[in-house]
């Protein structure tokens, strides 16, 4: 059996393991095994690649793998669950950068071997350009998303007039550079310019996107990192890269679509409108009634008498790192004979499934977490709904106020519960400054203060 044949056979096995791994990821019972199988597939692919006869020097490979492996392992162990969104963003970015570099390196080799009689094929030049473009914008876009998510830079959307025009012009310029380079590959300046412009495009495309839209952007960048790997696969004619890359690309597209649907917005609306910056009302917030504050002590009496409670967490729970104390409250309530469930909105938090991971960390069983469509029909049967650090995802204006910017977005109907507790820092308007009529409803009680502290007081009252 030839060496090439062996390599390709193992690649097929690796592809099968990736597919099987993703399939097992479909259920929490088998997901961990699925991830392991996928990792084994990756290990096989890497090991068999090393027998490739083109590889003659191993010192650089070993250096790269040791450095990357140490950093990756360290980050994976240290990162807090609340910081998962920015870590995924960062890893996405590295994947994109790796694809850019692979495309570029493949081109450098091809250029070296090319002559006037046998120039570099146009097909290869085009696919290299695609991997540079997509890899580059994934890299800088993810870095910016990382900065926004970790609050190293402001999470507010940055919008200026003519932004769409500028972004379109940058994209056009990359394509022009690509065209000029394909026509005359000896002029490397077009290549360098294209790399620079692709990096710039990533920044300018994430700039107008605000914090609450991050689930969409991370999903999209996730998809891009897969597509970048697939285009690098085209450039070096490697089928495994194409298969694995397109699996990831498809996965990211599906998540992006789910996130957009959960916000009732189109992808282009998320990418270009700079939500929040344009919808911010200039006038004072219109009072829609009286806010009824409640002390944690009084809240305790209501919770103590409740037979069923639904907890609705949002990004505020992640910020306050309140997931463990939420779980304590849940136990107290359950010991008291109360039924407790959690209602999770698809875009609660900063990435798909963010709340689920935080609650899993606090040992909340996943079968106690209900999706929006499961909980909404039965919300009026709950005695108390406790909203912890969520705002837009429980805003009844999405159903009732046609002029509201979020009108039509599917929300968790917290206001249908007999009593609603809203744990909130202050009455300052939340992201995007959209009024939330929930706070003024007859059955709503506001518990002001830090979510963690409030929950602590509630748990203490039960003791």
């Amino acid at each position, binding site marked *: 059996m030839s060496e090439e044949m062996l390599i390709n056979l193992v690649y097929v096995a690796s592809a099968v393991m990736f597919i099987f791994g*993703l399939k097992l990821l479909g259920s929490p019972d088998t997901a961990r095994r699925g991830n392991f199988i996928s990792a084994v597939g990756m290990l096989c692919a*890497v090991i068999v690649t090393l027998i490739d006869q083109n590889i003659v020097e191993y010192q650089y490979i070993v250096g790269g793998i040791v450095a990357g492996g140490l950093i990756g392992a360290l980050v994976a162990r240290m990162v807090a669950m609340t910081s998962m969104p920015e870590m995924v963003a960062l890893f996405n970015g590295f994947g994109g950068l790796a694809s850019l570099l692979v495309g570029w390196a493949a081109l450098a080799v091809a250029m070296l071997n090319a002559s006037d009689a046998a120039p570099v094929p146009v097909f290869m030049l085009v696919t290299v350009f695609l991997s540079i473009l997509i890899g580059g914008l994934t890299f800088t876009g993810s870095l910016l998303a990382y900065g926004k998510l970790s609050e190293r830079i402001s999470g507010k959307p940055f919008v200026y007039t003519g932004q769409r025009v500028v972004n379109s012009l940058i994209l056009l310029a990359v394509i022009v550079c690509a065209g000029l380079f394909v026509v005359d590959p000896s002029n490397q300046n077009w290549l360098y310019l294209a790399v620079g412009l692709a990096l710039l495009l990533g920044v300018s495309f994430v700039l107008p996107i605000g914090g609450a839209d991050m689930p969409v952007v991370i999903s999209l960048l996730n998809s891009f990192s897969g597509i970048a790997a697939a285009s690098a696969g085209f450039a070096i004619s490697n089928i495994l890269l194409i298969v694995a890359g397109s699996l990831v690309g498809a996965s990211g597209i599906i998540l992006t679509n789910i996130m957009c649907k959960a916000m009732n917005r189109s992808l282009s609306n998320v990418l270009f409108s700079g939500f929040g910056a344009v919808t911010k009302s200039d006038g004072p917030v219109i009072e829609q009634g009286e806010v009824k504050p409640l002390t944690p002590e009084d809240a305790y009496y209501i919770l103590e008498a409740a037979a069923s409670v639904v907890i609705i967490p949002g990004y505020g729970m992640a910020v306050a790192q309140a997931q463990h104390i939420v779980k304590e409250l849940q136990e107290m309530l359950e010991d008291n004979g109360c039924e407790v469930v959690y209602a999770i909105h698809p875009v609660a938090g900063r990435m798909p499934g963010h709340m689920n991971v935080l609650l899993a960390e606090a040992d909340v069983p996943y079968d106690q977490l209900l999706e929006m469509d499961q909980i909404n029909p039965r919300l009026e049967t709950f005695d108390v709904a406790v909203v912890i650090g969520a705002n837009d995802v429980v805003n009844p204006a999405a159903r009732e106020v046609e002029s509201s910017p979020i009108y039509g977005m599917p929300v968790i109907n917290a206001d249908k519960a007999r009593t609603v507790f809203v744990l909130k820092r202050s009455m300052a308007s939340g992201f995007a400054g959209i009024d939330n009529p929930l706070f003024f409803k007859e059955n709503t009680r506001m518990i002001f203060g830090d979510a963690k502290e409030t929950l602590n007081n509630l748990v203490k009252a039960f003791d």
Partner: protein
Amino acid sequence: MELIFLTFVFVLAIFLGFELINKVPSTLHTPLMSGSNAISGITLVGALVSAGAAHQELATWLGTAAVAFATINVVGGYMVTDRMLAMFKKKDQGEG
């Protein structure tokens, strides 16, 4: 012909991806993202050849950097996904 063949594989894999991922419940979306992110580190395979082929200095350096970044992606992605998935428990499995 090679172009057609590779495109064929690409299109089929995308459809397969859609079928597979559509079945993943929303509770697993974060591990799905970090796990698929690790898979996208497959670029490592391409990077290995660039880094070790000793064709030319530029390609070696670009390849070595790609190996390092892709390895971060692969190792970090799989490890953190495993860490997350270990935390998911059913009610009757009790405390862990």
